[in-house]
Each structure stands twice: as C-alpha cells, then as structure tokens.
C-alpha cells in the first residue's frame, strides 16, 4: 500500500478522460504523464519509467492488453491498472483478460475518484456507497 506521491502514466485515447484522471490523481498529490495510445505509452514508459501505469484497453494504434503485455515484459514489478468502458459487446471480458496478462487491478468505467486512487495506491477499494 502506497502513501507517498507516485508518478503515474495515464494511457487513454480520450483526451477528456485523460484530463479527468489527471485532476483526480493530482488532487491526491500524485504526478501524472499522459499518452494517447498504447504505442506512445510504451515509448513514454521506456523514456522515463513511472511508478504506476493506468491504461485503457480499446485504443487505436496499439490496444491496451498488448500494451500491458509489453510493459510487463520489460518491467515485471511496475503496478498496472487496467480501465475499460468495455464497449457495447464484452465489458468484463477485456478486464479479466487484462488481469490474466499482468494487470494488478482492473476498474470498469465509469469509476469514482476514490476508486481510482485506491487502485493506484494499492489500497482496498472503498465499499459501494462509501464516500471517497
């Protein structure tokens, strides 16, 4: 369980969501860097490895599960949080596969601030209805 400030790499193709996640994490005292797809995210990781990676699944250029697999191959111990709206077809399946391939935690969209921070800081997720 983390309490110190961490550097978080946020990988998501939606600019608006990246901004929202940035605000959530910065309000908790964490540093955020962004990438808009898996290919750029992997490049950013190699350039300056973060403490935590938060990555979407459905993205152009390079989707999230492959990105998780590739990051895990070069950084076995980095904490990875997979997030996904799942689209209209198979929501939880994406996140279950992400977990099998190395994600430490998964978070279906939409999620609350306290849920995101709990995942990033490796704390227990707050119970439903509990204020965060």
């Amino acid at each position, binding site marked *: 369980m983390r309490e110190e400030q961490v550097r978080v790499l946020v990988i998501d*193709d939606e600019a608006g969501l990246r901004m929202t996640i940035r605000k959530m994490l910065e309000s908790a005292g964490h540093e955020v860097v962004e990438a808009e*797809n*898996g290919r750029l995210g992997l490049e950013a990781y190699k350039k300056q490895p973060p403490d935590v990676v938060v990555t979407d*699944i*459905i*993205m*152009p*250029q*390079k*989707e999230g*599960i*492959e990105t998780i*697999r590739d990051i895990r191959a070069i950084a076995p111990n980095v904490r990875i949080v997979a997030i996904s*709206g*799942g*689209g*209209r*077809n*198979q929501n939880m*399946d*994406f996140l279950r*596969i992400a977990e099998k*391939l190395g994600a430490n935690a998964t978070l279906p969209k939409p999620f609350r601030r306290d849920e995101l921070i709990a995942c990033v800081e490796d704390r227990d997720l707050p119970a439903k209805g509990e204020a965060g």
Partner: protein
Amino acid sequence: MMTPVSLQRNWLIGAAGELASAQAWLKENFSEATWRLELLGLEEDSTAAGGARIAVRCTFQHGTDAAKFDANYLTSRATAAPPVIPVPIDPETDGDAAFADGARKILEGPEPISAGKLHFLGLDKVRAHFGDNWPKLSSRAEALVRRAIERRLSPLDVYRKTADLNFVVVFGSLSGREADLKCALIAEEITRMLVGDELGDGMLAVKTVATDLDGPEMLGRLVPSLDIAQAIEAEIEVERLQREAPPPDISNEDVSNDPLAGIQFVYRPIWDVKRSAVANFYLLPGKHLASGRSRSGDSDIPGLENIEIRRRFDQLIIHRVITDLRALHRQDRRLVISFPIHFESISTPTRRSALLDGWRTLPAECRKLGVFELVGAPEGVPQGRLAEIVNHLRAESRGVLMRVPLGTPSFRNFSDTGILAVGVELGMQTASEERVMAALKEFVANAERARLAAYLHGLRSFSLTIGAIGAGFSYVDGDSISSISDRPEEAYRFGLEDLYAQRLGL
C-alpha cells in the same frame, strides 16, 4: 448473297458419305453460285446408321435447271436411300427446320463465332448409371432433359437432340463465358433430377465447340458431315490442339482483355462476436494482376465499372457459391456462406430471374445456408422497393445483408425491410485509426437506432479489431482474425480470449 429462290428440294440422307456425295454432284453439275446445300436437322430413325437421318435442303437460284437435279441425282438415290421428301418444309410446324433456321441465323451472322456459341451436352454416363433400366426410363428422362434445356433458352437460342441424351445447343445471345455457365447450370439441374446430388461430379459432359471460326465456315463444316455429333467432336479436337499449342509470350502485355479472366475466390471466416463462434464464411473474389499485384473485393477489381461485366461477375459468384454449397451438402456440413451481389443485378424481376435461375436449382436446405450481401445500392432507394427486393431474396436464402459506406448517417430507410444487418468493407481506408474508430462507433449506434445488427469486413489491424468489438459490431472478419481458405472450413468456437491467445501467442 443469293437472289430470291424459287426452287427447293428436301430429302433425307441415311448412309455415310451421302451428304458429301450430294455436294460433290452439285459442284460437278452446277455453278457453285447457283445452289446452296443446307443442313436442316436430324430425323430419328432407328433403322439408320447412328439412329438418325439428316434432313437436307438444296436451294437453287431462280432459272437453274433443278429438274436436272431431280432426274439425275434424287431419282438415282431413291433406290439406295429412304424416300425423298420433295415438299417444302414449313418452318412454323417443323422442328427440324426451326432448328436449322435458328442455327443458320446465329451461325451465318456477320460476327465471328466466339468460343462457346455451340455447346454439346452429353449425358451418356447418366444413361450408363441406369443400366438395364434405361429403356424404361428413357422417354421420361428425355422429357425432363428437354424441359430443363428449354427453360433456360432465350428466343434467340436453339437446340437439337443428336443422339440418346446428347444435345447440341447454339446460343444466339450469350458470350462464350455466359454460355458456359448456362450449360453448366443446365447440366447440374439435369443430373440432379436424374441421379441426385451425390453423383453430380463426373456424370456430365459439357463441351464447347469452335474457337474463332466464323459462322458460315462452321455451318459449312457441319453440312458435309453425316453426323453432327461427329463434326462437333472433330471441332473439339481442333480446339484441344489449339489449347495445347505453346502459349504466346505475354510478358509485355496484359494477361487478358477479359476483366474477369483469372478471377479467384477465397473464403474468410466470419466471427460472430456475440455468440463467440465461427460458422459463417464470406466469399471474397480476387485477382492477380499482370503487374504481380493482387486485388481483392468486389469493388477493387479493375473492369467492374462496366455494368455488363458486373453482372457476369455476379453470375460467377453465384455459380461458385452453388458449387460449394452442394459440396458441403454432400459432406453433410452445415456452414453458412455469405457472398456479395451487386444491387443492380437483382433490382428488377428480369435481372433477378436471370441471376437466381441457377440458385433455385439448389435444394431448399442448401439455399437456407446462403446469405446475400447487397452491394452498391444507390442512395435513396425507397423503403417499399427495398423491402420487396429483400423479401424476394429472403424467401430463397438465410437472409440479406446490406453493405453501405462507412459514413452513412442514417439507416432509417432500412428499418422493417427484412435486412438482417448493415455493414462496411474497411478495405483501403486511408483515414487514421482514431477517425476510423470514431466512425465505427457512430455506425453501430446508427444501426442500433434502426434496430439492425452491424457487420464489418476487412479488419487488418488488431487495434481496430478490438475497437470494432468495443463499438458493438456483431460480425467481423479480416486478416487480423483468421487467414483465408479455398473452401469453407469447419465451424468452431472462437471468443475474445481465443483472439488474444492467437495474437499474443499464448
């Protein structure tokens, strides 16, 4: 061209060499410009060699001493040949004359005969199949065969029986390739009617006669021969020898002037995302160009801008699907085949009939495994007209899909028409993946508003595949999902985990 004639003599020839003999006599006794010998057709006669006699007519130019012919030729032949029939033949009532007139009009036209105008249908193996039962069945079989042939001939075509279950067909209105296809359909239907599907292959002989002979030359070659079938066999031999000649050097020229030459077909498995299965295969036409590149898809192949080429192309597709559905049926494998057909090829009853004649020879259980994908429908087709067309196709298939451009803003016009799903061929999309993914989401949303499922062809990128699934497409296919095959393969379970396992080598 001869001046109008006033003298004609018709008679039957029943012995070998008599036609050549008549021709020789006429040449010796009359100037060649004053007479014309015509083959009218065959009269069945079990007492004659070959089972038939040839009816011939000699037409003399006005003023020629035809009585000399009567006295010196016909009379002398009367003792050696069957009785002369010196009466004019009424083309309206005499089938032989009708065939001869029809064949002459086709074969004496100004255009050279293209390969395929003349076809020989031989079903001797069918007869052999019935063995000792054949005599009891032959008349009924012949009636079925004639009906199958006549159903597919246009008023410009003629046919004639040359021997037991052997027919010659002269097509007046089709190209060689169309005639080939039509004969193949006729032969398939006849075989299915007589012996059933399981013995289909190898029971038929459909031979095409004549490569680049012009009509009068072909007719001239046919006339001196006693037996039309023998003449045709001789021509087939000529054609075979021509085919076996060394091919011309085409290294510096286009492989073929026919845009449809060299068309090949492959199949892509279609992934049913919601059911996590593959049981549907999509027929994909393609062609290797002389440049060494390949083109695939029904819109990328050069030459398809021409409407007649497109219709022939659709005929090729239907024929291939018919063949493969029959094969699957014989193997007791229930796999669905989807295939593209241009909207204009089925948009009118006449065109629809021309295209679906062959389709309807399939057993109903086979037709229910075919899915028509309509491509190239013009914008703004009235909903009522679309429903009418779709309902016609639905009645004879598993269902109908409609392919549209990616940016189509609304599918309201397709609601309640019976269309199963609307879809897109990604093909050579040049927009960025970001823009394509956004467009895919909107496409599915629009389809759902019209209560339609959505399908997607041609996924090449793994990230786009995931994007398409995320967007909500029900059916997807492409290189990133599965490789192509020559024939539809087995049905199998396939889910998201299988896709990732395949991709990541797990």
